[in-house]
């Protein structure tokens, strides 16, 4: 038990590149920077909002899935950065206070979303699955552990999991 705690905490230590607590500003160029920063490793960028009930229902699942499957996870709230304290409180309750977290810090939200995907009109939750080779798959709604497991284990450039928007990549 104690060994597991140490391992978990150490894993969190190594995995969390950004500061725990309040979200960092997500601005023009942030998405590309995240993808670049995590290149070569599977990256999951999960977009959520305080006003999205399915998002809030899903949040507590993420730390468990991440712990079991192991991938880089970044959370981005489409709520304004001004809601930082409320966002941090919600993430803490979901056990996500050690996951790198961002919030929209530009009121021109269309442009931020356009940089993420050219077909995104604001539906939430939206999750970008970026494989080690950069191939991107988008999932609207709940992702689920099975779909993530399939995505992590699939060979490059195929996608057979339900709810998976590939083969069309979002990086048009």
């Amino acid at each position: 038990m104690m060994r597991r705690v140490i391992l978990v905490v150490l894993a969190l230590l190594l995995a969390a590149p950004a500061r725990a607590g309040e979200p960092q500003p997500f601005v023009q160029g942030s998405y590309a920077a995240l993808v670049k920063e995590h290149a070569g490793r599977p990256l999951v960028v999960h977009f959520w909002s305080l006003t999205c009930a399915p998002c809030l229902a899903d949040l507590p699942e993420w730390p468990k899935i991440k712990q079991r499957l192991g991938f880089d996870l970044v959370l981005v709230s489409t709520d304004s950065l001004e809601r930082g304290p409320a966002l941090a409180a919600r993430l803490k309750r979901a056990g996500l206070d050690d996951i790198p977290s961002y919030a929209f810090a530009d009121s021109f939200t269309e442009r931020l979303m356009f940089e993420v995907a050219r077909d995104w009109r604001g539906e939430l939750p939206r999750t970008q699955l970026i494989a080690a080779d950069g191939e991107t798959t988008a999932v609207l709604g709940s992702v689920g552990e099975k779909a993530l497991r399939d995505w992590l284990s699939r060979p490059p450039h195929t996608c057979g999991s339900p709810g998976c928007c590939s083969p069309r990549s979002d990086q048009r």
Partner: protein
Amino acid sequence: MKRLALALTFIMSAALPAQAHDEHGGKPHAAASGCTEPVLACARSATPAFGPDGTVWIVWSAAGRVFVSTSHDRGVSFAAPVAVSEPAEAMDDNGEARPRLLATRTGTLVVAYGQRMDKHYNGKLFFSRSTDGGQSFTKPQAMLDGIGQRFPTLVEAPGGRLYAAWLDTRNQHAAKAAGHEYHDTGVAVAWSDDDGRSFSGKHILADYACDCCRLAVALDRDGLPVYAWRHVFGKNLRDHVVAKLSADGLSLPLHRVAEDDWAIDACPMHGPSLTVDPAGSWHMAWYTAGKRRQGLFSAHSEDGGASFSEPQGFGDPDRLAARPQLLALGDRIWRAWKEFDGTTTTVMAQSSTDGGRSWDGPAPVATTADASDHPLLVSDGAAPYLSWLTKAEGYRLLPLSPASR
């Protein structure tokens, strides 16, 4: 063990800020959303209403308060805003949700808005009125005791009765208490026969509405309100319905508009638009990313919602056509929407003189290269206007004219 975990937590919290700082290099240079002054320039949405004398009113929120401004020159200039509400921590105003305003035939102004309450960020609906031409407003009253209301609408029937409707999660809380799964929301309707001083009814008349998309309303020819919303069929099929309030105000029978088959466990945050033309046809416009069709669509019903015409696509899907609006005025139906090319947002509009079968244009009406509200169509009963709040240009009320083919 506890001590070790605490020690490790301490190390983490001590080590991580420095690391974070290195990676992100401090504050961002891009435009922050942190606009907190009680001015229209800090509002995310502005919603207009024409008074019976042609006065233009707009309602908006900024710095956690609701404000009303008036214009006597068709929106060119506005008088100093008047505050409706005291500062709240957060307003329910993301463009999809927005404060609403009604200028009744007696000159009374009625405002309805949602506020974000408690640590769960629940919505709560308030209303207020002004009987002195918008110089002062009554202390806002809660529509209901509980929480969990969003997306208010207000409309005045020809007989002077005001109808308010909103999405209401009372049944969700009740289901939770009873141990049932229910993640959607109800549609509640209330009415006022005293010019907005008080509302009665307030019953939930329909259930299983999608809880993140705005409600649309239009008056039918007999003066009863017709509502439209994104419904949840079965587990997660988020297609649209229309429903006309019964004369006794106690039922809201649903009709499905189209089978788009959009099965999604997510919030589209994209509600429909509804208008009724002088011939009594109901016109609907909506967004879907369903299995059967994707993009913006419109359809009309000539039999009170029992059947709808084949959905007709409009807007450029490659330019993210979104936020459809409809307005029937005289012998013309207008529709408007937003398109975005990565840099510039354009409001497109077109009109139909054959009941929505064929359309002119479309033609661009206005553009912006920064943040913008949803486009809204509004009329003074004589002419159609586009109402649009944009960060760079401010509030604009632009007359629409038919485009050439």
